[in-house]
């Protein structure tokens, strides 16, 4: 009989190995699923993981997409990971992402067609503030009335989606757009555009912000007392109070940071890759970032790698849909497997497997 035994200290070996093991298991289980769908599993796996980067025909298009997709995922996931470590569950990054985009685009559109150097920086600030303000609603409701931030932040996503729809057919609609929903294209308005900085790489300001967030979060968690307090609050809330951590301030800070980063991601997206506010502007980055945060085990470096991996499965998944005719649902199931296996093998870090009969309950 197999049984699990708690380790006295977490295993460093498994901490490093479980993500690789999880990816390998996902490939095996995913391959079986693709085979059951009547596709060649090896070809499918190669299409998802290899072709986006190295296929001679498609790689020139899909390689820059890697950073374009990974940027917002990493930026949002870094913010979420701080809260998750402290036991503060902001599930509504998608809504904060939308509000950041609306605020940033709103500032840009308000200046149209003036050309000033300061328009884009103002949009950056507005985007961060938009996401921050949206995250403050669940934060304040939790600290004042002890509401559950999971529910409030999640439900606010649907409010934000309706705001987005209303804006794209109402206040922000392009007056020269012939009545079609959607705003002016910000990427064609130089003062407000977030262009590709190095041609062919997909690198834009949002990607740079994501890398900066990774570095800042790493320093915060490793070297700064605030990072220590975040970890402490998540692991041992009573010890955190003993250490002088103010739970209210911590909730406000963590929700604020995650909201601001999600808002920034939305703002960089709307002014760059997406270009405009439209009804279907959001594509679920805010939710996928939750997976990225956990896949990277809430560690900034891990999140960086997890964001790139997740972006790869997105691009590869699209490629597989279009090259092999795999259904979109199969790709989503494949991504789900990744999270499932990661969480499943994660317990090897804290527990060891013992083979043998149970001896006693003590």
């Amino acid at each position, binding site marked *: 009989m197999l049984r699990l035994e708690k380790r006295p200290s*977490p295993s460093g070996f498994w901490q490093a190995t479980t993500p690789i093991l999880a990816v390998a298991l996902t490939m095996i289980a995913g391959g079986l699923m693709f085979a059951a769908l009547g596709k060649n599993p090896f070809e499918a796996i190669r299409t998802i993981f290899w072709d986006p980067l190295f296929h001679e025909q498609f790689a020139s298009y899909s390689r820059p997409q890697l950073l374009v997709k990974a940027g917002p995922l990493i930026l949002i996931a870094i913010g979420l990971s701080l809260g998750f470590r402290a036991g503060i569950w902001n599930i509504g990054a998608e809504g904060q992402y939308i509000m950041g985009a609306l605020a940033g685009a709103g500032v840009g559109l308000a200046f149209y067609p003036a050309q000033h150097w300061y328009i884009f920086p103002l949009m950056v600030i507005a985007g961060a503030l938009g996401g921050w303000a949206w995250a403050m609603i669940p934060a304040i409701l939790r600290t004042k009335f002890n509401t559950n931030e999971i529910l409030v932040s999640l439900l606010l996503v649907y409010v934000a989606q309706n705001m987005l729809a209303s804006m794209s057919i109402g206040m922000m609609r392009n007056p020269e757009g012939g009545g079609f929903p959607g705003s002016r294209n910000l990427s064609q308005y130089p003062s407000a555009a977030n262009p590709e900085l190095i041609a062919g790489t997909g690198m834009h300001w949002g990607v740079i912000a994501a890398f900066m967030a990774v570095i800042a979060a790493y320093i915060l968690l490793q070297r*700064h*007392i605030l990072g220590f307090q975040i*970890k*402490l609050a998540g692991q*041992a809330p009573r*010890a955190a109070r003993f250490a*002088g951590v103010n739970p209210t301030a911590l909730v406000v800070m963590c929700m604020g940071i995650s909201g601001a980063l999600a808002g920034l991601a939305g703002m960089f997206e709307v002014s760059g890759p997406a270009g405009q506010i439209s009804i279907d502007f959001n594509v679920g980055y805010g939710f996928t970032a939750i997976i990225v945060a956990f896949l990277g085990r809430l560690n900034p470096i891990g999140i960086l790698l997890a964001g790139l991996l997740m972006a790869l499965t997105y691009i590869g998944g699209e490629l597989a849909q279009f090259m092999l005719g795999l259904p979109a649902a199969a790709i989503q199931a494949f991504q789900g497997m990744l999270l499932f296996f990661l969480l499943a093998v994660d317990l090897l870090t804290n527990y060891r497997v013992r083979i043998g009969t149970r001896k006693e309950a003590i």
Partner: protein
Amino acid sequence: MTDLLRVEGVTKAYPGVVANSDVSFAISPGEIHALLGENGAGKSTLVKMIYGLVRPDTGRMLLNGAPYHPAEPRAARAAGVAMVFQHFSLFEALNVAENVALGMENPPPMKELASQIRKVSEEYGLPLDPARMVGDLSAGERQRVEIIRCLLQDPKLLIMDEPTSVLTPQEVEILFKTLRQLSSEGTAILYISHKLEEIRALCDEATILRRGRVVATCTPRERTAREMAELMVGAVLTPPARVGAAKGAIALEVRGLSVPSPIPFGTSLKDVSFAVRRGEVLGIAGVAGNGQDELLLALSGEVRAAQDAVQIDGKGCGDLGPNERRRLGLVSAPEERLGHAAAPDMSLVENALLSGAIRKGLTRNGFIDWGATEAFAATIIKEFDVRTPGTHVAARALSGGNLQKFVVGRELSQTPSVIVINQPTWGVDAAAAAAIRQAILDRTAGGAAVVVISQDLDELLEIADNFAALNEGRLTPPRPVAGLTIDEIGLMMGGAHGMEVAHHGS
């Protein structure tokens, strides 16, 4: 064969530690037998084997002459063995009768059970209302629920694990009367304790364990407490030395402190007042759950009160948080080590930072100086003899006693002017306890004002200058320890909670 229970050559090993090695002893019917030993001597493992919670590796047990190897507590109960644990397993939101029913195999209808509880409680002088909510009961009353639950099974052998740690001296007397009555009716009692005077007063025979082995058996009435203590520890004990320090100015003053308890079923503090001078130790006694945790929280700053309710060196700080009070010179050590005083999954270095950051200057502009923090952790480990493979071990990997030394050491190493400690030597072996008490007295001699909250009266009488007791959230006026009698102390602790009528007939 007159023995009720015989234990012969029982050995139990865990990975890395032999808990019991070749242990033998016997109890006859009606005998009150003491199992004596320090923390970690193997008492708990031994009784867990008798109660069917742990199975011995080798050796055998006989009950009434027949082989007895209970596979689980249910089998032990069926054979007539019952146990009252040190930590109660009661549901606070259920009433007494419901709690009793939950521990029974086939509980009778509630009404019948309630009348049975009343009958047994009157018979043995343990008054208890079956309809009361357990959350509203004192620790002594909760213990009665556990005892009555055992008595309803009509046991032949009753195991009691450290039963008096939650009782006032008066309640202890009542419990002893009940136990003597049971013994006279033929029930054998296996009584586990490290309190020697109690064992001398109550027990017929004693088996003394040290490091898992039986080192001696004796008849407690014929030995002095000191002789038994030295058998138990295996060394000659030196009581802590006091240097008569000059009493200085008042360093900590509490005036009319009233705060609601943040803990469910906790005890609110009501109008607590006291003052401690530099070079002075105030000992605060009380039965568990009478506001000790709340008092520590209110002094450490985890629970806020009115500004002038707590004053450090004359400066009102009742509305300040833990870190601001640390800056003013107050350090505190909560009772619960894992999860409150220390974060279980963090290393000792991180745990040194936890409360040491302010006074040891371990951060600069918020950035942590890990080098200095590690040096601080290493100093604590060295000075307080914490047994650990290194500073990077998780706190939960340390034994309770070692972690306690680390936590107390961390606070005492911060050159504090006010020290507040709840249960400084809980679960620590005698040598380490003596070291911790000595360290507290050294800081006192160095001019610190100290508040020690403890349920160990001997400890308080040993180190305190003044003595006060918490009873349902109220603090008695402090009195000098010199000249206090144990009866006066018992009355300060609230006497026997609602039990004066007990044992009228006996």
